[in-house]
């Protein structure tokens, strides 16, 4: 027996004549917080719906605790879902919403009372039992939706962009709270979002998807620091992506300059793609840098300035720095070996 709770094997899904998912292989561990991250239309919600049983895969198998569950309907799976628009039942009050699943299972009334109370405590909404759904704010509805799913003690909780409708501040608060709830109840969360920051903040592992395929699976740090290809590098965070040439181990040529780096194992003179994060570039005096350039725009972003520097070959470098340079100023750029990330072409 392995300790994977959910496994997808060779999952493909075709709607009409459009392939939404191709050959998805995915294993999710017990108690893991996994995020499916990707732009809209990348197939992340479809993947979630296949796990939940709302959608059938065209080919491939879904395993739950090692057992094939392809044809098990949603109501028989030990999985619950928090829907994008919460999907709370408007004709029932908070208590009845949370108790819905328990009542269907014909659980003792006193036990239901107790469990609902406990859930409301978990999501910090004690005393809301008799409130009507439409009297709640978006954030509160969100919590009720989570409570309604968790009260059934599922082994896996699916969350489909649950914070999408909340404002930024509330969203950040809920991100931390969701992570806390997950750690407290100790079950697997599978989370879908297009917000890379959300994914990095909460997840144990992030699965980056694009056009129905998995691009990369890894810890948030790995995804950010070691993206496997241009898409991931571009989608997660901001970055300067250039063509380069690996001259030998630990040495890459970009923009006609040979720079030391920490990557190895490429062929001699292999063409590669190079990622440099904007916060990893240092602006120095014109003659002290590895490259020269001219500042062409400066935008204040709060924590830092976002500056665009055009180098001698015309590439626009995006640079984040807490020190401001003036527009039109001639500057030098320093990129330390650690800041250079080499990606194989076409990966």
């Amino acid at each position, binding site marked *: 027996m392995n300790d994977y709770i959910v496994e997808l094997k060779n999952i493909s899904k075709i709607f009409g004549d459009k392939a939404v998912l191709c050959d998805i292989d995915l294993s999710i561990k017990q108690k893991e917080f996994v995020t499916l991250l990707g732009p809209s239309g990348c197939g992340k919600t479809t993947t979630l719906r296949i796990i*939940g049983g*709302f959608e059938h895969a065209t080919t491939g198998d879904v395993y739950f605790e090692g057992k094939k569950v392809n044809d098990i*309907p*949603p*109501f*028989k799976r030990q*999985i*619950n*879902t928090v*829907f*994008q*628009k919460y*999907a*709370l*039942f*408007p*004709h029932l009050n908070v208590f009845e919403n949370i108790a*819905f*699943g328990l009542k*269907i*299972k014909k659980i003792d009334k006193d036990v239901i009372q107790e469990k609902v109370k406990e859930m409301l405590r978990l999501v910090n909404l004690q005393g809301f039992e008799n409130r009507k759904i*439409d009297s709640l704010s978006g954030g509160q509805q969100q919590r009720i939706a989570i409570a*309604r*799913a968790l009260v*059934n003690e599922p082994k896996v909780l699916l969350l489909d962009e649950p914070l999408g409708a909340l404002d930024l501040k509330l969203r950040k608060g809920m991100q931390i709270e969701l992570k806390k709830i997950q750690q407290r109840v100790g079950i697997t969360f599978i989370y879908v979002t297009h917000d890379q920051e959300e994914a990095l903040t909460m997840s144990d592992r992030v699965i980056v998807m694009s056009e129905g395929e998995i691009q990369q699976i890894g810890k948030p740090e790995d995804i950010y620091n070691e993206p496997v290809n241009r898409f991931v590098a571009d989608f997660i965070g901001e970055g300067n992506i250039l063509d380069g040439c690996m001259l030998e181990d630990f040495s890459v040529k970009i923009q006609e300059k040979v720079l030391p780096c920490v990557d190895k194992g490429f062929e001699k003179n292999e063409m590669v793609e190079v990622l440099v994060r904007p916060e990893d570039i240092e602006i120095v005096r014109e003659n002290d840098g590895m490259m020269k350039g001219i500042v062409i725009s400066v935008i204040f972003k709060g924590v830092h300035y976002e500056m665009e520097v055009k180098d001698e070959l015309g590439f626009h470098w995006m640079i984040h720095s807490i020190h401001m340079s003036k527009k039109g100023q001639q500057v030098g750029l320093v990129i330390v070996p650690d800041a250079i990330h080499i990606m194989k072409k076409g990966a």
Partner: protein
Amino acid sequence: MKKKWLSIPYALWALIFSIAPLVIIAVYSFCSRSPYGKIIYKFTFEHYRKFMEPIYLNVLWRSLLLAMISTVVCLLVGYPMAMIISKASLKKRNILMMLFVLPLWTNFLLRTYAWMVLLRDQGPINQLLLSLGIIDEPLKLLYNTGAVTLGMVYNFIPFMVLPVYSVLAKMDECLIEAAKDLGATSTQVFLKITLPLSMPGVVSGIIMVFMPAVSTFVISDLLGGGQTILLGNLIQNQFLVARNWQFGSAISMIMMVLIVIAMTISSKYKSEDGGGLW
């Protein structure tokens, strides 16, 4: 508020053709009657008291009963229909809706006459059954309560399907998925989610079928052949045949009160439940 004057044409219309006649009927219903049927402006309860006689109460009861039966049949037939239409693909949905509304564009009388043709002794239904040897002599399909109920159901069923459909079509599919996700079977989803959430439509449908059904006189006249006297026929008779406008007005008032009561009950029910068509 500036556009208040825009409502003047309608207000005038309502005043002349709805409110004024209502007032006149209300006044007539309390007026005395000369031996030849002239209106005498002298207050009396006589017409209302007359209505309390068993023969008229019987008519009231029969009207209510028939209207209730047709409403229930409309609900039982119309609800599944509305559900099927709301679940169909957009293209199919339009075609189905069209088929449903199409008969409404032909004249109400024509449709009812068509039923007379279908149901009579030499009509196609009896002909078919006879030729198949299922029956030996024509069934009495026309001129009975069954025919009247059939006519009501046929004529009023769109008024049940439309409001129920509009509520079901607006219902968020993810509520149903959420219920399934929480362990509900299809039957449980229907009983706990779909049905309660469609109640505003059902209540609207019930009113929209019940009200015309309780007051109809053409259907009972044509398909009931004068055998089934309903409130509507009674009123019609009082005005056109018996020339007792006072009594006709009194019956009209009673019917109006019944309808207002029905509407109040239903609107109360809906405001408690949130949403609704009116």
